[in-house]
């Protein structure tokens, strides 16, 4: 389109024609002056404004600073012509940054374009917000963007842009986006038919789910389902294959999303996921000729391997992955070597055993000498991660050897890593001191201060080490050229521990003094001041060299450096005190050990995380570091999500102190507002919902819910502590229900588990019924029934939450007793607290009698065996049953129901060996009997 602005084309041609930079600048200055004048005169029509702004943009792209045209760009945005609007928006996104004052002027124009019924204008506005959106825009426009995203009438390309724009606004101002409230609605968009929309929505959800993992938990199932459909069922539209790989970007995104969640417990999901990952790994076993195809396939493969490692490092999948990785790191293709090493570092960081990796140690060490620095870096990271006590001497030795020839840019990081490994995996003190001093002498300038601080700390705190350290450091000082860091270490160690070796030949005080002092003239002032401190310590322990030392103090009293001068004066005064004065001795007491603290080295390597950015799922380093990191974040989260319901004070108390211990000395900031623990879904209310539910508590099948759109029915079967519910969903309207999602919420997952047998289809065709099997297992006594949440899109988004008729009596099995047996047990259990009793009013049937069959139905519906002939009164009911649980075993329960026709009252007594069961059963049976 620059094409139809002749002046602009001419301008570009002129600049290209300019042979030297000066001519180019001259031409640009001339043009800018001209434009400035034109703008000042005003009275420009749209075309002229557009042309001049385009020229300004071009100048800006060339890298020149431009300070005009902002206002004109803002004007162009509100033009009604698309071509002018487009240039205006381009200028705004390029010339302005998010804090620019001019942006205030465009908020209203942008809103107008967002609300307009014209998709191309919507797109321009969305794109502008996504690029320069400020927190102010987030406040003003988040609602409009959200509306465009969820509106069923939005075109797919608008939806895509809206999803990413919303993400931008969330990153700018998380608090203006009610993420938890919108969660289910947003997740439902992951079922969109257009894979492009799914890709963008997944990006959005990935960011939101990291902050609110529980609210977005459904996305886990959706992601697994989508991966399964793409990878195994090949269900995708043809245009989304990229060089024969189906939707690689989407697959990568989904695989990444799953890594932000802890490995799933759900058996069904696990097996589906396993199958999918297995397929990805086997299908990419044979590389093809086409570079593009290989790239795309490997992109998916590497992400799949990362996910497999994240899920379970002991699974056979990871073994397969390890074999693949081993092949990759010796691949001819540099990209593959690079990523192979990177992923291997992930494996090393998480895996419990490093044995499979150690087989390839040789190859990895060779990679340190790869021709590509990027690969060398990855090899270094991997060696750092896979180091342990067994191979530390080898790896550190290899790194030290490589350090001498390594690139300058690599050295500082290498030094840090070597220092950390040496400290962490030292097999002997001797080796530690040797290595670290060798490191300091070899790396010289690349040794950060932390490294030698740490040496001093360790030597001071380890008594066995001091003598040896003093001897070695002295040997280093005797060599002609010594790096300054080594002089610092030498000064400190000899000052403190020089006297330990002074009696041996060759290590006499005067020799120590000469070796150290000969280096002093090459050192900077701070190092010299360390040496002065060494000398005053020597005055205390080596009286034989006192004259030489006093001589030095005297000379230093006249240097210009204030610090040195002051030290010299003070030390001189101390040294010249009479011999019987104890002052000197007190001052020069041996240093006490340092308080134990976390090495400053690791904290320098692992700096803290930022908030709304995507987090890394692992860090370089051994398994412990990663475990620690994980614990830290989960603990922090559990601490923040202290719910009033949570009455386990003891548990949270210990967790707190663990957090404090773990945090001591570490600078790890709390990740921003960690997720709210999933609250129970709010139940849908309706006149008949309770009745349907109650009826199902004592019958095996029936209707659970029904409205104009959908009907939900249940058939159930229970056997021991296991049960199976077939849930039927019927679509009653003539349009499909899309993004059909059903989830089950269990408040106490330690007592009851409920899982779907397979991932359900996400579309419910018009006027059809689908069935889902739910497996339940009773582990302990529970009181709250699971809650089924069904959501779908039928034009608008709808969601229904209802209780499932899974109650504790469903796991009862009736038992038969004779009269004597029954009463024996009844008495044995005894009264309160193992008895629960209640008296409540009842209704009589039409004839004014007690509705005996109804009562019997309820009692036997609750899986009690009704024992006839035990109670002489025929309208009373006596029952017995045993509860099966998988964890707590069996619990017996007896029941007695005594209705009184005259008083219209009824007495219900339940006795059980477990107090909990007695109360729970009494409540359940009572509610069922009262319900009419």
């Amino acid at each position, binding site marked *: 389109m620059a094409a139809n602005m002749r002046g602009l084309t001419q301008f570009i041609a002129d600049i290209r024609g300019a042979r030297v930079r000066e001519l180019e600048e001259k031409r640009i200055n001339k043009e800018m002056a001209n434009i400035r004048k034109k703008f000042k005169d005003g009275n420009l029509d749209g075309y002229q404004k557009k042309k001049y702004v385009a020229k300004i943009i071009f100048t800006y792209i060339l890298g020149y600073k431009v300070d005009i045209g902002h206002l004109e760009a803002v004007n162009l945005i509100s033009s009604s012509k698309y071509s002018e609007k487009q240039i205006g928006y*381009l200028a705004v996104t390029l010339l302005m940054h998010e804090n620019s004052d001019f942006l205030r002027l465009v908020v209203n124009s942008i809103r107008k374009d967002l609300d307009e019924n014209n998709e191309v204008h919507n797109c321009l506005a969305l794109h502008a917000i996504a*690029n320069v959106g400020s927190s102010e825009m987030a406040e003003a426009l988040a609602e409009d963007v959200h509306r465009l995203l969820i509106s069923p009438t939005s075109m797919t390309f608008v939806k895509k842009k809206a999803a990413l724009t919303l993400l931008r606004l969330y990153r700018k101002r998380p608090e203006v986006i009610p993420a938890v409230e919108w969660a289910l609605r947003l997740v439902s968009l992951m079922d969109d038919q257009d894979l492009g929309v799914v*890709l963008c929505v997944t990006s959005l959800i990935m960011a939101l789910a990291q902050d609110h993992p529980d609210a977005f938990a459904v996305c886990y199932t959706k992601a697994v389902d989508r991966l399964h459909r793409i990878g195994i069922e090949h269900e995708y539209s043809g245009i989304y294959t990229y060089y024969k790989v189906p939707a690689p970007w989407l697959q990568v995104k989904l695989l990444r999303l799953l890594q932000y969640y802890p490995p799933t417990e759900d058996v069904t999901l696990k097996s589906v996921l396993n199958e999918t990952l297995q397929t990805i790994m086997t299908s990419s076993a044979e590389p093809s000729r086409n570079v593009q195809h290989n790239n795309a396939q490997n*992109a998916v493969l590497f992400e799949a391997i990362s996910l497999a490692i994240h899920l379970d490092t002991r699974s056979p999948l990871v073994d397969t992955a390890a074999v693949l990785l081993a092949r990759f790191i010796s691949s001819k293709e540099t*990209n593959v070597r690079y990523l192979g090493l990177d992923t291997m570092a992930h494996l090393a960081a998480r895996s419990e055993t490093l044995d499979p990796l150690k087989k390839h140690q040789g190859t990895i060490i060779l990679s340190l000498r790869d021709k*590509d620095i990027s690969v060398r870096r990855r090899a270094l990271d991997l060696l750092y991660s896979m180091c342990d006590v067994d191979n530390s001497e080898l790896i550190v030795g290899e790194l030290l050897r490589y350090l001498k020839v390594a690139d300058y840019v690599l050295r500082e990081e290498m030094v840090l890593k070597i220092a950390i490994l040496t400290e962490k995996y030292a097999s002997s003190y001797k080796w530690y001191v040797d290595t670290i001093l060798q490191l300091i002498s070899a790396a010289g300038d690349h040794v950060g201060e932390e490294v030698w601080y740490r040496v001093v700390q360790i030597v001071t705190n380890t008594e066995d080490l001091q003598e040896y350290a003093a001897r070695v450091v002295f040997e280093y000082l005797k060599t002609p050229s010594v790096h300054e860091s080594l002089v610092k270490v030498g000064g400190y160690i000899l000052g403190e521990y020089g006297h330990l070796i002074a009696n041996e030949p060759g290590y006499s005080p005067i020799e120590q003094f000469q070796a150290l002092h000969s280096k002093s003239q090459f050192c900077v002032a701070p190092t010299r001041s360390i040496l002065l401190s060494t000398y005053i310590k020597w005055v205390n322990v080596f009286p034989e060299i006192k004259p030489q030392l006093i001589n030095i103090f005297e000379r230093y009293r006249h240097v210009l450096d204030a610090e040195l001068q002051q030290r010299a004066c003070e030390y001189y005064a101390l040294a010249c005190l009479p011999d019987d004065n104890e002052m000197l001795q007190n001052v020069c007491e041996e240093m006490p050990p340092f308080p134990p603290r976390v090495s400053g080295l690791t904290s320098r390597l692992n700096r*803290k995380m930022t908030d709304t*950015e995507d987090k890394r799922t692992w860090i370089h380093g051994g398994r412990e570091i990663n475990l620690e990191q994980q614990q830290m974040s989960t603990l922090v989260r559990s601490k923040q999500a202290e719910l009033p319901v949570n009455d386990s004070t003891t548990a949270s108390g210990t967790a707190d102190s663990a957090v404090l211990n773990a945090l001591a000395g570490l600078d790890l900031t709390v990740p921003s507002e960690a997720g709210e623990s999933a609250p129970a879904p709010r139940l849908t209310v309706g006149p008949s919902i309770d009745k349907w539910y109650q009826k199902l508590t004592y019958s095996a099948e029936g209707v659970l819910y029904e409205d104009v759109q959908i009907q939900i029915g249940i058939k159930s079967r229970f056997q021991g502590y296991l049960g199976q519910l077939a849930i039927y969903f019927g679509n009653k309207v003539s349009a499909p229900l899309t993004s059909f999602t059903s989830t089950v919420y269990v408040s106490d997952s330690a007592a009851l588990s409920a899982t779907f047998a397979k991932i359900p289809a996400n579309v419910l065709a018009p006027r059809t019924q689908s069935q889902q099997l739910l497996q339940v297992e009773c582990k302990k006594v529970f009181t709250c029934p699971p809650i089924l949440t069904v959501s779908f899109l039928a034009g608008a988004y709808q969601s229904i939450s209802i209780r499932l008729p899974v109650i504790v009596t469903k796991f009862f099995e009736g038992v038969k007793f004779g009269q004597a047996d029954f009463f024996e047990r009844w008495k044995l259990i005894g009264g309160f607290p193992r008895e629960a009793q209640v008296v409540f009013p009842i209704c009589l049937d039409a004839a004014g009698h007690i509705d005996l069959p109804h009562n019997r139905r309820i009692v036997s519906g609750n899986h009690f065996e009704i024992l006839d002939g035990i109670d002489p009164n025929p309208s009373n009911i006596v029952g017995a049953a045993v509860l099966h649980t998988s964890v707590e075993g069996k619990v017996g329960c007896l029941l007695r129901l005594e209705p009184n026709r005259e008083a219209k009252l009824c007495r219900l007594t339940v006795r059980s060996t477990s107090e909990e069961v007695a109360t729970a059963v009494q409540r359940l049976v009572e509610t069922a009997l009262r319900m009419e």
Partner: protein
Amino acid sequence: MIHAVLIFNTSGIPRLTKFYTPLHQSSQTVVQKIFSLISVRPQGLCNFLDAPELEAFLGPKDGSNERWRVVYRNYATLYFVFVVDGAESELGILDLIQVFVEALDRSFQNVCELDLVFHFDEVHHILAEIIQGGLVLETNVEEINSSVQSALKARKDSFISSNPLALGGSVGGSRNGGLPTPLNWLTDRLTGVSGR
């Protein structure tokens, strides 16, 4: 997230610079720095560069342990460079560069460096259909192309409506069309092009 998309030629002259995160350096310096790192890398090395020395130029805010990586690809005289963080798959970005080039090729029919110079705005529009605010928007060349075409059509309509007398309303980045495009009109007059 993608933090920057750059295109520069083998002499280091930028043809497209698009930053998705605010810089604390002039864009010129960043381009020069990246160019100096990439141009010395011979063929056959990997397409990724994680360079701590870049951190001072475009590194993330202090206190993030995220290291940015440079993913680049060389096509004829041009380098396509993406600066990304750890949340992006390296190979995925490499593929995305290919998609970007294919999309450019669709719109310009056999794209060359000159197209990027004279149709800088169009290049930005195409990029906007692929990446938005640092995130991948669309990866499918067909889809990208159809979005670009619909924008082109909207532009054409607005052009015709405002210039009812214009001949044919030849607008757009494509070099087809009845009239001789201004590009031909220009290339005749260009002599001694130094590469600027």
